[in-house]
């Protein structure tokens, strides 16, 4: 998008084929994404603000919204620290197994959320998990409690920050860092003054995408949360429960809130990115 603006004008399609292609693509996206998405908004506001106020006045739902937000924020903080650290290691250092690690870091993107949940239960489950009984004996419950939800959320969103930061780190190179170091800056000063400002946008995109992904995780959270009303239920689980209990208005309203965050995240990223690369 932005790249095109800086490059010499690309060859544009000509002829009638161009209009046919444009029409097909627009229609496809209209029927697959735009119209269905619009209908969720329409269904939410069908009876005025009733549906939205209905869920926002329900203390259980408010609790669940708060839990979702808290879990998402914790997960994003963990993934940002981990992601920036691992990206620095992958780009700036040489160590055995680097290639393997790099490939393994992408695994969470292609693992089914249900399998993520199952894998965590097998290790941290309180009854017969590998580490679960010992941890529970020491007073830490992970599965069917908030730590489990946080772990599942961190798992599914793990690669997002790394994928945004690594290309940026490679593009900026390490000359400025070396210069800073030769002028006497220590590693921490170099990171805060030189590296972080240079990769700022990559980190911000990663954070925004992780936040959207974390708020929206459903399958993995469903397996590890135990779905206890007002205790360990997140907003995505509310959508399912409301819908299955024939409270369509409530389901649409909760879905609308989640969709709003997702769309806002996409728009923020797409508005910010071109500015930066110009």
């Amino acid at each position, binding site marked *: 998008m932005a*790249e095109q603006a800086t490059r010499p004008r690309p060859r544009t399609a000509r002829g009638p084929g161009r209009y046919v292609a444009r029409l097909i693509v*627009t229609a496809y996206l209209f029927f697959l*994404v735009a119209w269905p998405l619009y209908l969720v908004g329409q269904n939410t506001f069908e009876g005025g603000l009733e549906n939205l106020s209905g869920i926002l006045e329900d203390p259980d739902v408010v609790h669940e919204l708060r839990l979702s937000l808290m879990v998402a924020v914790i997960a994003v903080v963990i993934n940002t620290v981990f992601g920036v650290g691992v990206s620095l290691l992958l780009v700036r250092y040489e160590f055995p197994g680097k290639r393997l690690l790099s490939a393994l870091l992408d695994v969470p993107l292609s*693992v089914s959320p249900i*399998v993520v949940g*199952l894998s965590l239960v097998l290790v941290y489950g309180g009854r017969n998990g590998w580490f679960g009984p010992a941890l529970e004996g020491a007073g830490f419950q992970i599965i069917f409690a908030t730590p489990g939800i946080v772990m599942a959320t961190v798992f599914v969103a793990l690669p997002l920050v790394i994928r945004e930061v690594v290309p940026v780190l490679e593009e900026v190179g390490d000359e400025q860092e070396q210069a800073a170091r030769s002028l006497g800056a220590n590693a921490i000063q170099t990171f805060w003054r030189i590296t972080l400002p240079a990769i700022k946008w990559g980190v911000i995109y990663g954070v925004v995408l992780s936040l959207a992904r974390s708020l929206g995780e459903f399958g993995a959270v469903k*397996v590890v949360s135990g779905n206890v009303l007002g205790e360990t239920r997140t907003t995505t689980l509310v959508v399912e429960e409301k819908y299955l209990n024939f409270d369509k208005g409530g389901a649409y309203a909760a*879905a609308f809130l989640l969709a709003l965050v997702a769309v806002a995240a996409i728009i923020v990223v797409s508005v910010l990115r071109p500015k930066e690369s110009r």
Partner: protein
Amino acid sequence: MTTATLAPDRSAARRSARGGRRLNRYSGLGLGVAMLWFSLLVLIPLLAVLVTASEGGWSGFWDAVTNEQTAAAIRLTVGTAFGVTLVNVVMGTLIAWVLVRDRFFGKRLLEVLIDIPFALPTIVAGLVLLSLYGPDSPLGVDIHNTRIAVFLAFLFVTLPFIVRTVQPVLAELDHEVEEAAASLGASRFTTFRRIILPSLTPAIAAGAALSFARGVSEYGSLVLLSGNLPMRTEVTSVRILSSIENDNVDNAAAVAAVLLAISFAVIVILDVIQRRVMRRG
């Protein structure tokens, strides 16, 4: 927006392409902590799935996977993911083409629409599709609880993958080669087939692998949409979940191992494609 996010071939290949400094004491410690966390969170749990799956021996695993209902679920999931990937190869390439080569009012909006399935919670994606193609459909099309619903849900969640892997490659193609081909008398179709398509193939293949993996692992969008009818619209993830809920963890792990094998295969394929592309240029 997510060109970098969805184009693993590029970032992963570059990640390992260039070397750097050797580890010192602090970076070594950092790597240790990161690896410990990654192992506790991802590697050990995934290993636990494979170990649990193998505990019943080969026959136990085989019985779990070839159970009539499970086999039907695996067939449906893999078959649908494959069909959806084929549609995505055509539509994704066409969308990428239009976004790169065409200019028109509202193109930015299309860009946003393509990324929405990536950020939208899957349960919401299911509800979104249900509102247009469900019982209350304003179109009068009700595909709720049918296999078409599974296809549609996969189509929705995998939409960005091929578009976002092909788009940057298409944008960087050298136009002079195309013009040369055209000036030598090649028709537009020949130019596309002989010049453009070969350079897009690695990107299309990478996007297709991702789209297939995403489809096979899908769960959330199907919950409300497909009805999860055994033998008809039940996908593999749902099968695993019902085994977990029935406290049959061994069975769940066996089926999960099949899904994990598919994910790993996809990662290996992506890696091979990356290496090929790197070697070529």
